[in-house]
Each structure stands twice: as structure tokens, then as C-alpha cells.
């Protein structure tokens, strides 16, 4: 197709293409992230006007300020516990479920897509109300691992659906061959199917991690005491301070956003193939 576009329209069309591309990508996608980081390392007082687009000189004071002003380290630790816990639990549960739905499609598989769809229709805000009651009765309120359970339940349907797509692309013949050699089905899964789907599993893991890292409503409602706050709740509490401390808040925001962004950068290719394999192939 590029050969054809080179023939048509020539130079003007290429330039237009690049201009449009840069506009869309730079301004729309990257600018807010860039602006967040730039504003946090800018040595100019945030009340300078006009704003400095390219901060100079760089200054890390707002990071120092953020770390002393708010218990970011503690929030970070809590968030890490919840995200890692959710990812591991989700993967274990979803891999098993995904194997079942992929390899034994008859009974449950057909209704499964509909089920996943329905779970996507449930507003978290509706779920949060009874969860608050139920978790309260079970003594799970204000426990980080109660939050892990909630986040896991929320990501399992979609994770299972994605894993089904990955498992579907591993040929059944390989398992069959192993079973002919005397393996049990489960052993074949463990020795062959799962290892072959490792990139997909990793992608789903990253997906679960990202979702739980930034999750807000469950965290806000199910975890009540300050010391168990996760980053999303902590940063939300900045609301009252908008007037004075933008650079510090943005520094905290940058620190919050860094792990998922880095993870995303490394895992990006795998994740996008996972999200679409289910959608396009069905």
C-alpha cells in the first residue's frame, strides 16, 4: 500500500500525513503526560505566567517535598501489595478457567462471552454498596487482601476471556500427542499448553496489574484507615490543596504513574494482541 501512496499525491500528501500524525499523537496522547512531568521538574514557581513549555533549569524539589509532605512510600507499598496480589490471584484463577473454556467449549463456553459482557455492564458503584455491607460483616473491611479479592473478581471475567483467546491458539494436537504418550489431561495442560501460552499469560498479568494499580472506587470504599490507603485514594485526597501545591502534587502523580507506564511500555505489544485476539476472532 505504501507503493501506491507514493505514486499518488506525492510530496504534499506525505507531508499532510506526517503533520496529521504528529498532531494527533503528540498533542492528544503524549502532551498531558509530558506536561505532568515537566510541571513537576520545573524550577519556576507554578504561578508563572505564561507557562514554561520546556522547563529550565530542572529541579527535583517538588519530589522531595511530595515525599516528606505525604506518606507516599506507604501508599506505594500498599498499592504494590494489592496489585501484585490481584495479579497473581487473577492469573491462577483465570488460567484454570481459561483452560476449561478453551478446551471444553461445549457446555459453558457459549454462554461465556455473554457472561463476560454482562459483567462489564455492572457499574462498580452498584457493586460497592453491598460489598461494603458484606465485607463489613465478614471483617474484611480495611484489609488490603479484601481489596485484592474485590479487584480479582472484577478482572477475572475479562482475563479469562483473553486467556481463552491465547489458549485457543495453542494447537490441541500437542496435548493430544502427550496424552497418547500416557499423560493425564491436566499434566498435558501444565507441561505443554500453559508454557506455550506464556507470552499471553504475561500480557494478561500486566493487564490485571494495570487495572488494579489505578483502581479507585473499591479502594476508597473498602479500605478506610489512612495507613491502608493506596496511591489512588491518597492522590484523591489532594483535592483540597489545589490552590497551593501543584508541582508537588504532580510529582506525586508522576511517581504514581511511573510503574504502570513502564510496565506498559515493555509489555505493550503482547497486550494489544491479546485484547484483539478475542475480539476479532471471536
Amino acid at each position: 500500500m505504501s507503493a501506491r501512496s507514493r505514486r499518488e499525491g506525492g510530496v504534499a500528501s506525505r507531508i499532510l500525513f506526517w503533520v496529521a500524525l504528529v498532531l494527533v499523537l503528540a498533542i492528544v496522547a503524549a502532551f498531558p503526560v509530558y506536561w505532568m512531568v515537566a510541571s513537576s521538574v520545573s524550577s519556576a514557581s507554578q504561578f508563572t505566567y505564561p507557562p514554561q513549555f520546556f522547563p529550565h533549569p530542572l529541579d527535583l524539589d517538588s519530589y522531595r517535598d511530595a515525599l516528606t509532605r505525604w506518606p507516599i512510600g506507604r501508599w506505594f507499598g500498599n498499592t504494590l501489595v494489592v496489585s501484585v496480589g490481584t495479579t497473581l490471584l487473577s492469573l491462577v484463577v483465570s488460567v484454570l478457567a481459561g483452560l476449561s473454556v478453551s478446551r471444553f467449549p461445549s457446555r459453558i463456553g457459549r454462554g461465556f462471552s455473554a457472561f463476560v459482557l454482562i459483567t462489564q455492564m455492572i457499574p462498580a458503584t452498584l457493586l460497592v454498596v453491598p460489598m461494603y455491607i458484606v465485607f463489613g460483616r465478614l471483617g474484611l473491611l480495611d484489609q488490603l487482601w479484601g481489596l485484592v479479592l474485590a479487584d480479582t473478581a472484577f478482572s477475572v471475567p475479562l482475563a479469562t476471556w483473553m486467556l481463552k483467546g491465547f489458549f485457543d491458539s495453542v494447537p490441541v494436537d500437542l496435548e493430544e500427542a502427550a496424552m497418547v504418550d500416557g499423560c493425564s489431561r491436566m499434566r498435558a495442560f501444565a507441561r505443554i499448553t500453559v508454557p506455550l501460552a506464556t507470552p499471553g499469560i504475561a500480557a494478561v498479568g500486566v493487564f490485571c496489574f494495570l487495572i488494579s494499580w489505578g483502581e479507585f472506587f473499591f479502594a476508597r470504599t473498602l479500605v478506610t484507615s489512612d495507613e491502608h490507603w493506596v496511591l489512588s485514594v491518597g492522590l484523591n485526597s489532594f483535592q483540597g490543596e489545589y490552590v497551593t501545591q501543584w508541582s508537588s502534587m504532580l510529582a506525586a502523580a508522576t511517581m504514581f504513574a511511573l510503574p504502570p507506564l513502564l510496565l506498559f511500555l515493555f509489555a505493550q505489544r503482547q497486550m494489544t494482541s491479546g485484547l484483539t485476539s478475542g475480539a476479532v476472532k471471536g
Partner: protein
Amino acid sequence: MAPAARAAAPRGAPRPPRRRRSALPVLLLLPASTLLLAVLVIPISVAIYSSFFDINILNLAQQTFVGLDNYRRMATSADFWSALRVTAIYTAVVVAGGYLLGLVTALLLHRPFRGRGVARTLAIMPWAVPSVVAVLVWTWIFDTNYGVLNYVLRSVGAVSKGVPWLEHGGSALVAVIVVSVWSLYPVAVTMLLAGLQAISEDLYEAAAVDGAGRWQRFRYVTWPGLAPVNLVLFLLLGLLAFTRVVTIIYVMTGGGPGRATETLPLQTYLEAFKYRELGYASAVGTSVLVLALLFSGLYLRLARRILPEARA
């Protein structure tokens, strides 16, 4: 089973059991089912059940059965209808905006060029940014006096003074929509890119041979080719906008100013935790769920009639 029959079956297709019916499929689904039952199904049922009661969050033991009162109250409440209207506008614009932006980006990224990998990563990046962070940054961008948006608007002469975005209903809704579109459009980009790649090059060649120009190629090859993806994508975007991005609104405006940005899912939360009416909140939330089910059902039925060969 004859070896020939086994070899001929496509991969992943259901195979007749070769020994007694194994318990394995059910066992494998057990952890997921238990978890979902305990954490999803039961709470949802409790929520729907609670909608027929009057419950104050501070005194959970005291639950008075009120039948359909909550729903009656909801149907006659101006706030409910206002929230419904806001939800409709918000969802429609976010889906349209997210889709269009996603389509443009996907079309631009579709052809190979140097640096495409980087460009693609940048384009999808907003999705990986936590909602609270997105709100924080965009609130800063929208800031009345020092925000970069007002600076640009003033520089080009579009406005004379900084627009107080979050202080007026209409502009606050615009702000919230912008942040939501920014967060969601990578989903559209991802799916549309995959969909574009699935369209065979031969079709484009054939169209070019027939003398079709760029726009015609889009209209007669690309657009129909994207139909299956669009089917799923619109529904997905709709559901995400309807139920999943509430965080953005809550953190950015809290539903204000004066309920101008209060969508139904948000109202559910506020009624429960701000106004302490769990029963009424459950009624509102249940209606959100019912609306979502209704629209999805209608959408799928309509879509299946237009596109009988595509499946959701």
C-alpha cells in the same frame, strides 16, 4: 475415534470424550466460579434486593421493607432524570469522540513507516495512566488562571480571560468528556488497528484497479471491512463509558457543579455514601444495570440484523 477423523477436526473444536465424562472442566472452573459467586453475584443480588428496602448506612440492622417506593421516588425525582440526561449526553459524546479519534489514529498508524512502533506506543499510552493521575493532570491543564489550555486559548485570541472550566456546568461536562475520551480512545485504536490489518490487501488492489480514489477505497473497502470490529467496539466503548469511567467524574468534579456532571452510576455512589441512603442508591444502581442490559440487548439484536455474519 478413527485417526483420520481426529486429524480432520479443526483445532479447539469440541471433541467427543474418549473416556468417561471427566470432572476436569468443572474443576477448572471452580475457583473462578466460587470467587465470582462470592464477590460478584451475591453482592449484586444483595444490591437488587436492597433496592426494595429503606436502609441507612449508619444503621445497617434497621432495614424497612418499602416495596417499590424507592423506584417510585426515583421515577419522580428531578435529579434522577437530570442524571439520566447527563449520562446519555456523556456516553454518546465519549463513544463518538473516542471512536473517531481512535479511527483517525488507527488509519494513520496502519501503514508502515519508520518510527511506527514508537508512535503506536505513544498513541496507546493514555490508557495506562491511572484515572486519578489523568484527572490531576487535566485539572491542572484546565486550571482557570495558570492552566495551559487557557493560556493557548488566550494566546490565539479565542477568549479574553481564562475560562473557569470546572465552575460552570456545561464546560465542566466538556472537561470531563475530554478526559474520558483521552483515557478510552486507546481501546479503539487497538481494536481498529487489528481490524484494519484483517482487511485483505487484494481488496484494495482490486478497488485501485477499478479506479477508486482514496475516499472511495475507504468507503467501499475499509469501512465494510471494519464492520465486525465496529460492532464489538461500539458496544465496548459504550459500556466502558457507561459504567467504567465513573472514577474520572467523581475525582474531577464530584458530579458538580450542582449535579451538572452527575451521571447515574455516580449518583448511585453519592446516594449511598454521601446521602447515606443505601436502599435508594441500590434502586438507582439497579436501574443502571437494567438500562445497560436493555441497550446491549437492543444493540446486539439490531446489529445482528444488519450484519448477520458477524458475531459479537
